[in-house]
């Protein structure tokens, strides 16, 4: 039955993407298309006195200019995750009426015959803004003199997330050794190669508003749009296009997701807005910025007895739909793969006059892993132990599964479902060849070169519920169509779901097509985020395909006058066991199941079935990374010589795709470790709005050697496929492993790495400080 699942089959998406026939939102062609550009606040905090579009409106080629006053009363963009009702006052309005709170906040929409003219018109918008004092650093946001961003809330403290277990104070007091650290993760984000964009067309005759472009969770976004517009949901259709990468940021409901459809309903022709790169840096969710002060109580052998963390998270200027995900998951995953009986974590979420934050691949796991794994290396150093042994000393054993961590994520208890962390870690050591690496390190040091080895161990989470939909249909030509509520983000969902369907149904892979992201074709769906599509969406497809298979076999049994138990459905053909020439194809059976045909008693017509797969708990992949780096202590340059990922994602549907997710995540993690930062000046202006300043890794920054080993040691017990999500795991450990390796390389200088990215300037600064 497993003919395709588990195989590295080539992706169905690729032929169109390789030939320039993909259809991204900028590629959709409609007659008379108009082009929008958005005027954005140049100030981080200001009272809006006036936004006047009259000069812009007068420019030839300009069709319309919409300023804040034109919108009327519009509710702010909701979030499902706000911890308390008072935070509604801090949701982002599609366009603010009296105050702007970050550079880049939309203040007017210009629509013109082409984007060039639209940008000309932006220069003619007259905005009178009265500058207000700024919270340019969230760490000063709680000071008594700090300006308040949201007066209705009365404080810049959005929330305080607290998670604890045991008696941490006593455990710390009684611990033989207490080791402290202070760590910072820089503001950075996903930066997909394609900016966001959307195209909205309004059909005056039918009242249908069609929106192309957003992806990830089109059904929810449609609901939000319907509510904000006060417009019937059935008259709004979202159609996903190909998209140039998601990474958690794309497909959140952003201000433009209201502004552009709203504008389209007031225009004579469809309108498209494409976010350019500068806008992307200003407008799309930022992420990750956190400061931690941590302490571990440990035994002399490295056993972790207690763990505390006082952290602060920069929320940016508003609570966006996923603003609380990262801080929540940070606390949830601070314990990681280790057995820690006593802990207490407190995370203050604080507003600042910066772009609001949201989720970026591995939210909360990347940050908490950096903090925990760095601290473990400090523990090893202080105790004079090998960091390898400290980790070995503390792993949760495979026999302890399922293991209740004691934390919660999104309000639900974190209970690891399966895993053998020790085995994976030992595998990572073997793949690195620890002994050889340490020998190489010692030899290099004799030549005056500085090599370092670092580790990081991670528990990831995936497969967020509560459900996902699938409808599997065999049409009368025998072709199988899977309608899935998940979304395509470039991850290959059209292939993996087809593999699942082909196996579960008994069809040929080439006969299966996956349709997703069209609310006109798929009545209910949730989408793709939190590494859920394969887990929840895949399971839904599996169950729906099985229902179709069962139906096909029952119809065939009747037509072939055979016992269903004697029938085999394979490669799209039903045969009677032992009588290969008596066969019916899926095409035959689809025709036999058409309405009006005689069917077995109680069977609905149509060779099709729908399944909603419900799941209560997420599933937990894990990974153990090892890095070998070389640091030039005279220039601060860091080169990664070897990077090892050992990951377990349960059962794999497509090893090629899983491998791609791991390596892709790893290189994004290298960016976080070495290159990427969204830097602001003290006045609240974003300094990194180009690819010359915000530095994505290139091939030249690749490790000389990359080893990815994906094990299938711990299938998920919570879904019929045994799969865990593979979308995020690759990135999570990387900043921690690289930072640990850099610190190890510079051990002769006695440096302590506390912040990212490890730019040459920062690294040389560490070396310099150690020499003073």
């Amino acid at each position, binding site marked *: 039955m497993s003919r395709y699942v588990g195989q*590295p089959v*080539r*992706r169905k*998406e*690729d*032929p169109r*993407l*390789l*030939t*320039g*026939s*993909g*259809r*991204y939102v*900028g*590629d959709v*062609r409609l007659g008379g298309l108009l082009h929008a550009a958005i005027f954005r606040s140049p100030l981080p905090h200001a009272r809006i006195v006036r936004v006047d579009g009259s000069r812009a409106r007068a420019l030839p080629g300009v069709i319309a200019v919409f300023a804040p006053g034109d919108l009327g009363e519009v509710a702010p963009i909701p979030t499902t995750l706000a911890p308390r009702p008072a935070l509604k006052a801090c949701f982002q309005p599609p366009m603010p009426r009296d105050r702007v709170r970050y550079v880049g906040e939309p203040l007017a929409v210009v629509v013109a015959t*082409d*984007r*060039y003219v639209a940008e000309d018109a932006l220069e003619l918008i007259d905005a009178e803004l009265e500058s207000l004092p700024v919270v340019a650093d969230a760490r000063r946001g709680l000071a008594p003199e700090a300006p308040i961003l949201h007066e209705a809330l009365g404080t810049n403290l959005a929330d305080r997330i607290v998670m604890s277990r045991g008696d941490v104070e006593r455990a710390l007091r009684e611990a033989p050794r207490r080791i402290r650290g202070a760590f910072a993760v820089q503001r950075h984000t*996903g*930066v*997909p*190669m*394609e*900016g966001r964009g959307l195209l909205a067309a309004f059909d005056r005759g039918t009242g249908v508003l069609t929106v192309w472009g957003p992806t990830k969770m089109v059904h929810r976004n449609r609901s939000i749009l319907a509510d904000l517009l006060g417009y019937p949901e059935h008259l709004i259709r979202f159609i996903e296009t*190909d*998209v*140039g*990468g*998601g*990474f958690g940021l794309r497909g959140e409901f952003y201000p433009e997701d209201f502004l552009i459809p709203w504008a389209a309903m007031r225009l004579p022709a469809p309108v498209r807005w494409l976010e*350019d*790169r500068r806008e992307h840096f200003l407008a799309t969710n930022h992420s990750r910025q956190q400061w931690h002060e941590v302490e571990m109580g440990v035994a002399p052998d490295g056993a972790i007895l207690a763990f505390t963390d006082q952290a602060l998270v920069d929320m940016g200027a508003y609570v966006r739909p996923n603003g609380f995900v990262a801080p929540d998951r940070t606390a949830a995953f601070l314990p990681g793969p280790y057995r820690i009986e006593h802990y207490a974590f407190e995370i203050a979420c604080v507003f600042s006059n910066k772009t609001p934050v949201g989720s970026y691949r591995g939210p909360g796991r990347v940050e908490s892993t950096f903090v925990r794994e760095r601290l473990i290396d400090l523990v090893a150093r202080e105790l004079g132990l090998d960091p390898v042994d400290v980790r070995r000393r503390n792993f949760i054993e495979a026999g302890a599964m399922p293991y209740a961590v004691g934390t919660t994520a999104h309000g639900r208890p974190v209970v690891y479902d399966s895993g053998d962390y020790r085995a994976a870690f030992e595998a990572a050591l073997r793949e690195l060849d620890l002994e050889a690496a340490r020998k190489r390190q010692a030899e290099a040091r004799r030549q005056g070169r500085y090599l370092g080895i670092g580790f990081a161990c991670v528990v990831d989470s995936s497969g967020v519920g509560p459900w996902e939909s699938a409808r599997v249909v065999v049409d009368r030509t025998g072709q199988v169509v899977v309608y899935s509520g998940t979304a395509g*983000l*470039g*991850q*290959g969902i059209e292939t993996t779901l087809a593999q699942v369907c082909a196996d579960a149904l008994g069809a040929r892979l080439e006969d299966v097509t996956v349709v997703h992201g069209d609310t006109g074709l798929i009545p209910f769906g949730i989408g793709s985020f939190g590494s859920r599509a394969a887990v929840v969406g895949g399971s839904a497809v599996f169950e729906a395909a099985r229902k179709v298979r069962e139906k096909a076999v029952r119809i065939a049994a009747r037509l072939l006058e055979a016992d269903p138990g004697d029938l085999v459905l394979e490669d799209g053909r039903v045969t009677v066991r032992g009588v290969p020439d008596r066969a019916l194809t899926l095409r035959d059976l689809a025709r036999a199941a058409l309405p009006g045909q005689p069917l077995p008693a109680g069977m609905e017509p149509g060779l099709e079935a729908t399944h909603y797969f419900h799941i209560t708990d997420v599933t937990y992949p894990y990974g153990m990374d090892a890095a070998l780096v070389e640091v030039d202590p005279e220039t601060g340059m860091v080169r990664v010589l070897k990077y090892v990922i050992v990951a377990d994602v349960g059962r794999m549907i497509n090893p*090629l*795709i899983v*491998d*791609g997710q791991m*390596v*892709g*995540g*790893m*290189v*994004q993690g290298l960016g976080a470790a070495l290159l990427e930062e969204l830097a602001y000046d003290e006045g609240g202006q974003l300094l990194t709005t*180009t*690819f*010359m300043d915000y530095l*994505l890794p*290139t*091939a*030249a920054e*690749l490790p000389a050697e*990359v080893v990815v080993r994906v094990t299938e040691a711990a299938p998920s017990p919570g879904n019929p496929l045994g799969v865990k999500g593979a979308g995020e795991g*690759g990135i999570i450990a990387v900043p921690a492993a690289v930072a640990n390796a850099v610190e190890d390389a510079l051990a002769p200088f006695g440096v302590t790495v506390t912040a990212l990215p490890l730019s040459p300037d920062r690294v040389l600064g560490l070396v310099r400080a150690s020499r003073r």
Partner: protein
Amino acid sequence: MTERTIRLSVNGREYERRVAVRWTLADFLRDELGLTGTHLGCEHGVCGACTVVMNGAAVRSCLLLAVQAQGAEIRTVEGLADGDTLHPLQEAFWEHHGLQCGFCTPGILMSFACFLEEHPAPSDAEIREALAGNLCRCTGYVNIERAVRAAVTKLAGGRAGAGPTGA
């Protein structure tokens, strides 16, 4: 002089169009000729998604004005395959999972289509250096390098096969 008529050849087809002088070649290819396989990822010459081949050289089409392509021969991703037969690079990218979202892919394909003509037997280091001129946020590049190496082998085989002594 804010508009001009230009003539150029794109993927072997001749075009004559009136164009505003400030329009970039990338926008011209996409909006005027409907060749939307050439993508815009940054519009300042860093990401390489808009790379096309002009008169035999890989160039950033976001950093060229359409009027500068007067009389030029341009190749874009749409012209890479030979009818339904994929170019060896396209085949190899498919085979080795050298793309995920596919947005940067056309620029990378065109960069290497040009590179492999100049370097039929590149070293791994040369491939890596050439690839460093294009940003990809999904793949982590490793599979792209694998794909390029596979395409090199395939192209070399093709050439040997076409030679007088055969393969």
